[in-house]
């Protein structure tokens, strides 16, 4: 084992010890279902803001965006913008009503007016699907990170360790441990990113002008008309060379431009439909603290995403695309280039903490969807037994952990950023129309909601399966890791299904609601409206 590996393992060990300590502390404070799912609703606005930030800045943000910018220049930064602006949707439309109406899960809000077990079932299934996709992305990221930095540790073992740790956090520490793991991670990630950015800037004498001149000098190439670039020549189309600061290296041509809009739509709406983020708003005591947690989160996340400028473009200028074998490792490689191996070990450990915090948040969202929505409200028809519920939630957390370990091992070669993009698109299409309409539209019916959720879920998943991200004919000699899953011409031209699936889901919700009648839903809208606005009778 090399000293680089030892340093990395040591740093990882420190992170694991801190998080295990938090879990043990939290386990003594976790008894009831409210403790387990919502940390007793005693988290403050600032703490929850940090935890939301910790839950949100996943492997896709830290490793993924840096890699995308390092490979595609400006276009990678579009993710940073979309991920941040999305919090306006959360603040204006979702956070406060959700806290006022719901109890533990996304389905609480959806099934509030439409008191229907099928609504809960569909919402829980959607939660589980979005959560699992998101989780696999994180675990594949962890596996790649560990197996590349600590080659003596096998990819599969890395996945198993991450999986077991997350099961441990959730089962023993519940939401309280998860929250504090996220807070610690957010602080570490912000610190690491800040130091890395300063080191990059110091390379340019702390002159933004010099830095941008250097980025301007980096040239990216692509072929028009979908041709592939090989040895400086295009298989078809013409070769375009442009600066890394010029948009279009990734999104060019008619479909590329549409894909940019599609991605933007999925990102700006998707966050409001991510179950693990929504669930965080139940951990604070009131709607007012839910509001302040969004503001805190947005302040922190905004600074982070602005700093991705330095991570991504820094990797492009100081490391260079040619020296980055794995896109997801652009940020760690940059850390090594500007700070040496010890700093690399630190940044890798921060990335590892990032992944641990996010998978813990996802596990608890998934386990609550099963235990609270399906088990308690569908199977047991609302007859509550606190001890049994917590037990069921813990068992589910274990099962989710094991399933994601297997899926992450099976999907070894998947692209992390792509999987997270898929989760956002599915969340935006399946969940967001129903969440918004159930809070604001009196005429929304049970049939409208169920059909919209199913259409959103199925259409987004199918469109992704037949998109160029999955379907393409690779040129001969493509490595297995880079090959597309289905070797045929794509049936749908866009990589992101948002532009079609989101409007479709909204349209189905509205049309089906207008042609069906649902007296109970219309009647209970008054209660929804009053409670969403006043916070009266909100869960405490």
């Amino acid at each position, binding site marked *: 084992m090399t000293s680089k590996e030892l340093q990395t393992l040591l740093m990882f060990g420190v992170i694991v010890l801190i998080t295990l300590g938090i879990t043990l502390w939290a386990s003594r404070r976790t008894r009831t279902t409210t403790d387990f799912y919502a940390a007793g609703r005693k988290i403050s606005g600032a703490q929850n803001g940090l935890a939301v930030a910790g839950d949100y800045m996943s492997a896709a943000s830290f490793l993924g965006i840096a890699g995308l910018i390092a490979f595609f220049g400006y276009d990678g930064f579009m993710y940073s913008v979309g991920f941040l602006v999305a919090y306006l949707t959360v603040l204006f439309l979702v956070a406060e009503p959700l806290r006022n109406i719901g109890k533990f899960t996304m389905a609480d809000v959806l099934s509030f007016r439409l008191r229907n077990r099928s609504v809960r079932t569909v919402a829980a299934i959607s939660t589980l699907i979005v959560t699992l996709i998101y989780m696999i992305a994180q675990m594949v990221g962890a596996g790649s990170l560990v197996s590349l930095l600590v080659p003596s540790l096998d990819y599969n073992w890395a996945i198993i360790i991450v999986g077991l740790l997350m099961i441990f956090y959730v089962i023993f520490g519940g939401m309280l441990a998860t929250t504090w793991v996220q807070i610690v991670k957010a602080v570490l990630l912000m610190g690491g990113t800040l130091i890395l950015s300063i080191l990059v800037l110091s390379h340019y004498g702390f002159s933004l002008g010099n830095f941008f001149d250097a980025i301007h000098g980096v040239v990216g190439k692509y072929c028009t008309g979908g041709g592939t670039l090989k040895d400086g020549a295009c298989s078809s189309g013409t070769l375009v060379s442009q600066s890394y*600061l010029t948009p279009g290296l990734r999104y060019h041509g008619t479909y590329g431009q549409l894909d940019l809009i599609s991605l933007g739509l999925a990102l700006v709406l998707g966050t409001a439909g991510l179950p693990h983020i929504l669930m965080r708003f139940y951990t604070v005591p009131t709607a007012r603290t839910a509001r302040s947690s969004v503001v805190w989160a947005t302040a922190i996340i905004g600074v982070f995403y602005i700093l991705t400028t330095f991570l991504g473009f820094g990797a492009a200028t100081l490391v260079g695309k040619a020296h980055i074998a794995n896109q997801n490792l652009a940020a760690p490689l940059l850390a090594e280039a500007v700070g040496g191996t010890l700093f690399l070990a630190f940044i890798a450990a921060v990335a590892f903490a990032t992944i641990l915090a996010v998978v813990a948040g996802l596990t608890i969202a998934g386990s609550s969807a099963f235990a609270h929505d399906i088990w308690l409200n569908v199977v047991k028809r609302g007859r509550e037994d606190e001890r049994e519920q917590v037990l069921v939630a813990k068992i589910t957390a274990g099962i989710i952990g094991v399933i994601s370990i297997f899926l992450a091992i099976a999907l070894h070669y998947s692209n992390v950023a792509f999987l997270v993009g898929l989760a956002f698109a599915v969340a935006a299409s399946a969940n967001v129309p129903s969440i918004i309409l159930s809070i604001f539209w009196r005429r929304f019916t049970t049939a409208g909601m169920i059909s919209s959720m199913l259409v959103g879920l199925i259409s987004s998943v199918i469109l992704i399966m037949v998109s160029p991200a999955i379907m393409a004919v690779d040129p001969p000699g493509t490595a297995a890791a880079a090959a597309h899953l289905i070797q045929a011409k794509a049936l749908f031209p866009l990589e992101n299904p948002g532009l079609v699936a989101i409007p479709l889901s909204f349209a189905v919700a509205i049309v089906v609601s207008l042609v069906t009648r649902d007296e109970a839903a219309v009647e209970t809208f008054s209660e929804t409206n009053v409670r969403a*606005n006043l916070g009266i009778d909100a869960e405490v």
Partner: protein
Amino acid sequence: MADATSPQDGGKSIPARNTEVVDDQHTALRDWQAIERDSEFRELVRTKRNLIIPATIFFLLYYFVFLIVVGYMPDVANASVFGNINVAYLFALSQFFMAWILMGIYVWRAGTFDRLVERIVARVRGGNKE
């Protein structure tokens, strides 16, 4: 989706009776329809709507205009502002400040909602002893 955010006040005739349901979500029996008709409550919903709908339309427009400039208007996007810093990058950066400023305005205005909510809740609780 801005039009879907407006509750159809007064447009429907709502049966004037309680929804007599008590379960884990619906803890108390209240006359929700009466509260909904309350003039102060209507004022609350109206002032919130007057802030949220324009703010939502504004940020979505600002964001999608940005996407269109980046995707479809290369001449504008590539125009230089300072040296090599172009419109595309500054427009992206401005989205962050736009979000922070809009949030600031929302939080500042939400203080007014909170006071109104407190007044209504005190009245509802006072007139409806549990």
